[in-house]
């Protein structure tokens, strides 16, 4: 080989070694999420920007997102973990955390994700409930990314026509009276005072559940068997059934899912509806009436002294316990849950903020965003999570069936709740 040839070969070898060295130094973290950063919805754009920013600040870490169907992530992640093929990070919603927690496949994030967080970072949250719910035996097993809850949405114009004010619905009794007043017959059909879903759809958080938690914070025993055949439970179940029997809510609610119910509100057939906070913006956008007439009410309570409890839900990031890249995955999870990302999730992604620093942003001062402040205030005042190690979605279904039974006259509240307990006992065994 000539001198020139040897030089070229040496240069090629050096280049290959350098490239290989860089490749070896770069760690790829795989993440399953229902968001696809290649797409263009507001939240997907936020995720894309967060990944770009994180990779810029951490050149040795690359984030690869494998988009999944939202309700399958927890199942697939838990199964994949048992075969040691799970991704490093998975987005899992609170009711589904029961799967990775029960299977013990979630890593403790205290050191990897939250090790560098100081007191100021922790004090920034309007409620500690999202962290309390994912902390087990001192281990933080998931990082809250987005929070949501159900809330009451109402029609300001219908309230004005019926002479009802938001102050009238501070209690459950007040809500029933107001809903009856707001129920009206017309040539086009009935406009119902209150709409809420009662089908066996685990995604539909029961109205009765809010009423129970308001009086009895402990819902499950240590084995995740519901303890509900109590005076508090009976009162709440009867309250929910009264909306049907006293014709403040359509009987069709017994078969409606949350989507069905919200579509009727959008179509102008309900004065008040139970809706997810993540849906407020889209409900306003799709309403067949003036969108400025949509308002948000705090949850009623039994005494009216403070709002009823907001049962929180939302999306978390879980790091796989068996991942060889826990440190890198934890760093990205901390970034996604940090104050900078939280501002993006709210301002660009339309999510309700749960950090004080985000609430104070000038972008949220517009009157159109008043509902976000209203909900954040409610979360700060009275918010809770059902225990994620218990099967809450199944309990929601059973509670809806209990309300169905009472509303149809098939059972007394006590008998209906005893059946819920029996179902829960069978499930826990």
């Amino acid at each position: 080989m000539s001198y020139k040839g040897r030089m070229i070969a040496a240069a090629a070898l050096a280049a290959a070694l350098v490239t290989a060295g860089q490749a070896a130094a770069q760690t790829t973290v795989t993440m399953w999420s229902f968001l696809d950063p290649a797409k263009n919805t507001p939240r997907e754009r936020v995720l894309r920007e967060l990944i770009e920013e994180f990779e810029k600040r951490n050149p040795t870490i690359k984030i690869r997102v494998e988009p999944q169907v939202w309700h399958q992530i927890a199942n697939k992640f838990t199964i994949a973990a048992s075969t040691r093929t799970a991704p490093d990070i998975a987005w899992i919603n609170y009711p589904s955390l029961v799967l990775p927690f029960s299977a013990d496949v979630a890593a403790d994030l205290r050191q990897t994700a939250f090790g560098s967080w100081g007191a100021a970072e922790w004090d920034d949250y309007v409620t500690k409930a999202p962290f309390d719910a994912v902390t087990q035996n001192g281990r933080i097993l998931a990082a809250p990314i987005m929070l949501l809850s159900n809330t009451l949405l109402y029609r300001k114009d219908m309230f004005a026509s019926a002479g009802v004010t938001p102050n009238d619905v501070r209690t459950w009794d007040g809500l029933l009276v107001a809903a009856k007043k707001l129920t009206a017959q017309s040539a086009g059909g009935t406009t119902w005072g209150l709409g809420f879903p009662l089908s066996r759809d685990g995604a539909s958080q029961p109205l009765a559940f809010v009423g129970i938690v308001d009086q009895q914070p402990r819902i499950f025993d240590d084995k995740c068997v519901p303890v509900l055949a109590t005076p508090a439970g009976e009162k709440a179940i009867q309250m929910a059934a009264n909306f049907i029997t006293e014709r403040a809510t359509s009987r069709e609610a017994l078969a409606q899912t949350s989507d069905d119910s919200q579509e009727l509100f959008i179509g102008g057939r309900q004065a008040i509806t139970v809706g997810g906070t993540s849906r407020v913006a889209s409900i306003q956008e799709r309403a067949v009436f003036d969108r400025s007439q949509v308002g948000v009410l705090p949850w009623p309570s039994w005494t009216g002294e403070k709002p009823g409890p907001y049962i929180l839900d939302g999306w978390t990031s879980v790091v796989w316990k068996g991942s060889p890249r826990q440190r890198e995955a934890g760093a990205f999870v901390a970034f996604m849950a940090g104050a900078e990302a939280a501002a993006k999730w709210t301002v660009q992604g339309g999510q309700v903020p749960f950090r004080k620093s985000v609430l104070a942003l000038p972008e949220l001062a517009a009157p159109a965003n008043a509902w976000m402040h209203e909900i954040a205030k409610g979360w700060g005042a009275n918010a809770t999570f059902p225990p994620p190690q218990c099967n809450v979605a199944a309990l929601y279904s059973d509670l809806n069936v209990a309300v169905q039974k009472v509303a149809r006259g098939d059972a007394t509240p006590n008998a209906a709740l005893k059946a819920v307990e029996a179902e829960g006992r069978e499930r826990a065994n």
Partner: protein
Amino acid sequence: MRAWFQRRRKGASRADADAFALRLVAPALLIEFLFVFVPLAVGLYYSFHSVRFFQVGRFVGFDNYLSVLTSPAVLNSFAVTAVFAFGSLILTFVVGFALALHLERDGRVAVFMRAVVLVPYVISMLVGSLLLKWVLSQDSGVPQTVLGPLGIADFSVFADSSSAMAALIYNAVWRDAAFAMIMLLAGLKSIPLELYAAARVDGASPWYRFRRLTLPLLKTPMLITLVRLLMHFVNSLTFQLILTGGGPVNKTETVALRTFRLGFEDYALGRANALSFVVFLINVCMIVLLVKLFKPTEKLR
């Protein structure tokens, strides 16, 4: 292939022929093994173990079977399945048979009507059920228009257990009558017309021809149709999941829906698999019963 035929002609051994036939069906057998027998074996294994939250636990013997067979919710689902499956089977078969007889002739109108009848069958079950849910919901206005003149405008089809079950059966008949029609139509077309001509010459009435010619000669297509429909109605999930969600108060929760909920809402895959095997055995018994009922006992004279 050609070489094989040549060898056969030359008197190749029976063993060679069998080996060749086996090679031909091997790919199909492999697929069947991978996608039917392996999942069945895994399911059977799970049914004898505690499988919670997708984690396989200890061996529990027949505990899962005992648990599901003594569960009031499961027993309720068996009763619901019996009403739904037999109600749907009888009505679908009768409507399908009537359509097949009515549209047997190959006229322009009959061909057009066959296509019309097939529309619900070619729509996906999910879309068809969603469509029906919308049509029958109280707020669509359709039930009010129909029931209003009878003075029962404020009626929810899905909140009443009897009407919810009726809606479910209607959904099944609306969709699957077309399947029954096709199967029975194929059977009708296979009956030689000369037999009818001869019967007519002998003075047989239309009813007599139907009873003594059509029905006996349709035994096999009828058996296939009934078995296929019965299995479909016992095991189908989409109708119930989409149209009624098993409600109100679980009055339309069939055993398939209960199994789904045990597995994917309660995350009790051991029990869900045990229930699946119980249903599998019931399916086998019903097929045997139907085959026995349709066993040819009388030769056509």
